[in-house]
């Protein structure tokens, strides 16, 4: 079996490493970072932390050098989904692509490019410590299911799940993973923006009663949208926020890291995604809209030459 990881950052590398342990799977990776790609090709992909392995992965910055694959796993940041799929669509002429990206909206874009789509939600986390080296920070489940209107077959979803499980991943194949997806989406919509805007790690943010109230209000809006969509949540995202406080008190949400490094955030796939769907189905989400606009404004503040109206 050939599998191509699209976006071999921290999350993509965790999946690549699981698959790379299997004799019968050829793992390819597409990533625009040349230093990272070269290091993987020279030394193999190395995981540290919770996992301690080195596996062979054929990494490429030029997707034309990658052969056709049965499966793709896309872990690119959501805002790069379209660019990544434009580059790699030819690899999956008869393949299925599974998204393990954050938030909501990437699957629709993927469906424009490939015949069959698998939706996914993943909880493990890691971070790149050096080119070709990824620290596996936390474990956790990944839920996958066919994605309508271009669903992969259930057999295909199970085959991908079983393969990853053989490689040591904790995967749940389902008829419909939207409950897990929305649970994580709503959790992230509250925890990420609060971290990004207050600069507080998750647990500390939770301990500010006012900030915690804003999180609860955001969760309530997300739950209303999910309910109107007919999605049954896996668990209460608000309880997940408290659970996160216990388990990851000092953890800076990824959007906080993005903001501290002035990197464009995934707001469009998180609060922006909830607000967009809310608008479409007639559920008011004023606070998710507000948070989207504030984060967009913050991103805009980094482009000083634009708001100062300076000519280039």
């Amino acid at each position, binding site marked *: 079996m050939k599998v191509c990881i699209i976006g071999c950052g921290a999350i993509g590398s965790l999946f690549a490493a699981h698959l790379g342990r299997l004799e019968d799977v050829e793992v390819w990776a597409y990533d625009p970072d040349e230093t990272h790609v070269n290091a993987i090709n020279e030394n193999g992909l190395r995981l540290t932390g919770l996992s301690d392995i080195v596996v062979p992965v054929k990494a490429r910055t030029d997707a034309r050098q990658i052969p056709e694959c049965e499966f793709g796993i896309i872990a690119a940041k959501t805002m790069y989904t379209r660019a990544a799929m434009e580059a790699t669509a030819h690899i999956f002429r008869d393949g299925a692509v599974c998204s393990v990206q954050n938030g909501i909206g990437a699957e629709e874009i993927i469906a424009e490019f490939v015949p069959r789509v698998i939706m996914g939600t993943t909880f493990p986390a890691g971070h790149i410590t050096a080119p070709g080296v990824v620290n596996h920070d936390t474990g956790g489940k990944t839920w996958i299911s066919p994605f309508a209107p271009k669903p992969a077959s259930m057999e295909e979803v199970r085959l991908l799940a079983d393969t990853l499980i053989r490689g040591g991943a904790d995967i749940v194949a389902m008829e419909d993973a939207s409950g897990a997806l929305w649970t994580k989406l709503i959790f992230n919509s509250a925890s990420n923006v609060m971290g990004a805007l*207050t600069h*507080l790690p998750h647990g500390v943010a939770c301990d500010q009663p006012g900030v915690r109230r804003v999180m609860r209000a955001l969760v309530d809006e997300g739950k209303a949208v999910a309910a109107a969509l007919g999605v049954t949540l896996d668990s209460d995202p608000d309880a997940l926020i408290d659970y996160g406080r216990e388990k990851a008190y000092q953890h800076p949400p990824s959007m906080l890291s993005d903001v501290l490094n002035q990197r464009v955030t995934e707001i469009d796939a998180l609060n922006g995604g909830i607000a967009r769907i809310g608008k479409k189905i007639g559920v008011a989400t004023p606070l998710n809209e507000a948070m989207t606009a504030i984060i967009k404004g913050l991103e805009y503040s980094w482009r000083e030459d634009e708001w100062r*109206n300076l000519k280039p």
Partner: protein
Amino acid sequence: MAQINRTCVVGAGSIGSLFASHLATVAESTVLTRRQEHADTLNRLGLRVSGKSDLKSQITASMDPTDLGDVDLVIIATKASAVEASARHLAGHFPNAAVMTVQNGMGCEEVVARFGDWPIISAVTFMSGIRHSDSHVEYELDTATWMGPWAGGTADYALVEQVEKLINDSGLKARAFQDLLPAQWSKLIFNAVVNSVAALTDLPHVKAFAERERFQDLGHLVFAAMDEGKRVAAARGVELFEDPWQMNVEATSHGQSGNEEYAHAPSMLEDVRARRLTEIDWITGAIVREAEKAGIGAPINASLYRLVKGKESSWSFNDPHKRKA
């Protein structure tokens, strides 16, 4: 009041420095400072104004009110959070003076009234300055200061007109109102949103604040939050003097047309950048409290308020992910 011969500005930040320097052209101008070094500098160098005015004014300054003589008009220009300490410092002094408050937000007049029976003038100011040093202020936006008799006190409209004339004569802009509350509320709603959004986005008050085509646009949030404030005003029985949204559109069109570097940084943005406690409790917090009094919700303003409070709390927290310089 027969004539205003002597004025005292309490708190010579950018706004206080603009008042003190300009008033020196029409009266004896004194400044009550918090630091001895500040008073020494003012006594030695006076106040220089650049920008919209070009002045070099002589100032009498001290940390002790008794050094400042018989003052007819006191302007308290400190941050809202420092008004109580300022008023306590003034207690028992300046028996013939009227006191004018120019703080952002609401509620400073009540605080001053607890420390003396001076006639109190409410004011809101739209001018802005950049304080370059203790002795140099740049006059940035030459918009007016609005004033009116505080309803809870003994100041009458004739007194307000007298102060209006003095300030206009000094080269600043002033406008007297029989009832300032509608104007105060207009500015409160405007400030509650513009200041908190600037503090959270790290953006000065730029054109994006008035762009609202899509829900992701900053102006969409500004509009929604101001609309919420307008509903609070209506529920409190206040008819606004100006539409805060129009004020926002107008303000963001200043100096933004060409190749200019002007972009006004609201005071709360400056506070946040310097990691100083902000005036959020008096501004956005006032909207939240007024909404509670009116028994209606103001969820967007409440969220902006809580986020700025959260941001303030991060400065005392030992953050391992220090912000880039």
